[in-house]
């Protein structure tokens, strides 16, 4: 009878299944690690001139003047964070509303039509959304939304005029539209995965459907919903084209959302071709490094929290 263990000298005594697992496992781990390491190395090497010239100061300086070789990343980091959070502020309630409507309220026929349509929104190239932002949204913000905000909330520095069409607010709205399909479709999956007994358990206590959904169904799915929100945040942080078309591309520490700003991804895309001297190029690459780091951190946090929730729920 043939032995089911390897006869190769080095692998003697190891079963073929184990060998197969080791083989596939090393390919998977190595390829991912090597790719990430190569990318990181490339960014660090490219950013080295800026890293050694400006040090940590790079992250906290608000000066961005390529002519004088003054480079500070703060306006871009700030612009990325504010526009992304604004996108979440608008996009998350919208997405949850859509997800709850599709799972709890919409009749089966409406659901069958609407769900793919919403997911299709994610397939629109971002440059097209950017064009729509330029021709439709930016003028609309300048002429309707901004005056309304200034009139009613103008006492807040956040909504101080004058109103520009190309503004952080416009970018936030565009980003919200872009992250809504992913957040709503993942949240919808999460809500569909909530056992029917959970909702019935609440209803059997005399809860209304609204109370059952907000008090029991949504909290049950909160881990997966949080993961969906983080996916959206990741997309918002990295989104380049649509944002750069509507945010105004002005490296300043704005206080009013009605004013223009700039993001990390946008400045890299916009100024890469202009970066003729080494230190300028290195500064842009260092911004890329920061963007890479922030995206990684967001994703790691998202994974960790989703995993924790999933583990808690796994026992029920």
């Amino acid at each position: 009878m043939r032995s089911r263990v390897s006869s190769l000298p080095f692998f003697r005594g190891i079963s073929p299944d184990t060998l197969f697992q080791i083989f596939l496992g090393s390919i998977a781990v190595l390829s991912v690690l090597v790719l990430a390491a190569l990318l990181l190395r490339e960014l660090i090497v490219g950013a080295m001139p800026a890293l050694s010239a400006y040090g940590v100061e790079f992250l906290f300086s608000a000066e961005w003047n390529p002519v004088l070789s003054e480079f500070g990343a703060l306006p871009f980091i700030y612009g990325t964070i504010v526009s992304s959070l604004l996108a979440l502020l608008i996009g998350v309630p919208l997405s949850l509303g859509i997800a709850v409507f599709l799972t709890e309220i919409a009749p089966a026929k409406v659901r069958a039509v609407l769900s793919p349509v919403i997911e299709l929104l994610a397939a629109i190239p971002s440059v097209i959304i950017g064009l729509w932002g330029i021709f439709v949204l930016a003028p609309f913000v300048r002429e309707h939304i901004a005056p309304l905000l200034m009139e009613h909330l103008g006492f807040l520095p956040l909504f101080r005029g004058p109103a520009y069409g190309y503004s952080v607010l416009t970018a936030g709205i565009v980003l919200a539209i872009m992250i809504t399909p992913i957040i709503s479709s993942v949240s919808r999956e999460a809500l569909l995965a909530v056992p029917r007994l959970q909702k019935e358990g609440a209803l059997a206590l005399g809860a209304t459907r609204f109370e059952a959904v907000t008090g029991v169904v949504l909290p049950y799915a909160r881990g997966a919903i949080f993961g969906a929100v983080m996916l959206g945040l990741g997309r918002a942080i990295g989104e380049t084209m649509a944002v750069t078309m509507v945010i105004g591309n002005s490296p300043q520490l704005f206080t009013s959302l009605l004013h223009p700003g700039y993001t990390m991804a946008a400045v890299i895309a916009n100024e890469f071709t202009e970066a003729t001297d080494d230190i300028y190029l290195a500064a842009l690459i260092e911004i890329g490094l920061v963007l890479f780091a922030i995206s990684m951190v967001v994703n790691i946090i998202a994974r960790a929290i989703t995993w924790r929730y999933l583990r808690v729920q796994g026992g029920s």
Partner: protein
Amino acid sequence: MESKIEVVELNAGFGSTHVLKNISMSIPRNRVTAIIGPSGCGKSTFVRCLNRIHELVPGAWVRGKVLLDGKNIYDSDVDPVDIRRRVGMVFQKPNPFPAMSIFDNIAYGPKIHGMKKGLERIVEDSLRKAALWDEVKHRLKDSPVSLSGGQQQRLCIARALAVEPEVILFDEPCSALDPVATAKIEDLILELRENYTIVIVTHNMQQAARIADYTAFFLMGELIEYGETAQIFENPRDKRTEDYITGRFG
């Protein structure tokens, strides 16, 4: 015997499937009434019609009357949410809310009905009535996920008791539990009988024989025979009942 629920020519189903056919029966107050029958005979659908949970499934329909204290719960002026508070339900599988603590699981019902004060008292009372207080009193802040299956089911009973229902429906409450946990739930049901009207669906005939005052035998959506438990098990009048309880089918 005074009746708490009077079911009159109840028909129910899903879409074109006719599950319950002309059920009429009277469920006595402060007694345990068991519904037995083979899988798919409509016993779960029957109890789900008694608290208007059945109609929440897409395509579900109900015809006929269910009188609770003489008032038809399917009348157009009746709020199903109010009926579900008065007629509580414990499900086949324990379904504690995992996102809430043990305390909040019990307090959830009273809270949605507008109660803000005295929640500690209600939680303790409900847990005591469900014979769970001593096991969880030091861990009320914990997640219910850490409890055993039997404890989770008693938590669900406590949760149902917290909204002060008049009737409690048990839909095969022990089907996911081991014999020891099952015995505890059965003891509990016998105690609750003092203050509540209880309807229990079970596929376990010994269970019906142990705890039910009255037993109804369902087959293919029809009520075949209904009477005192001893009579049903010792002296069934219908041949089909006899076949079922002697284990010839099902």
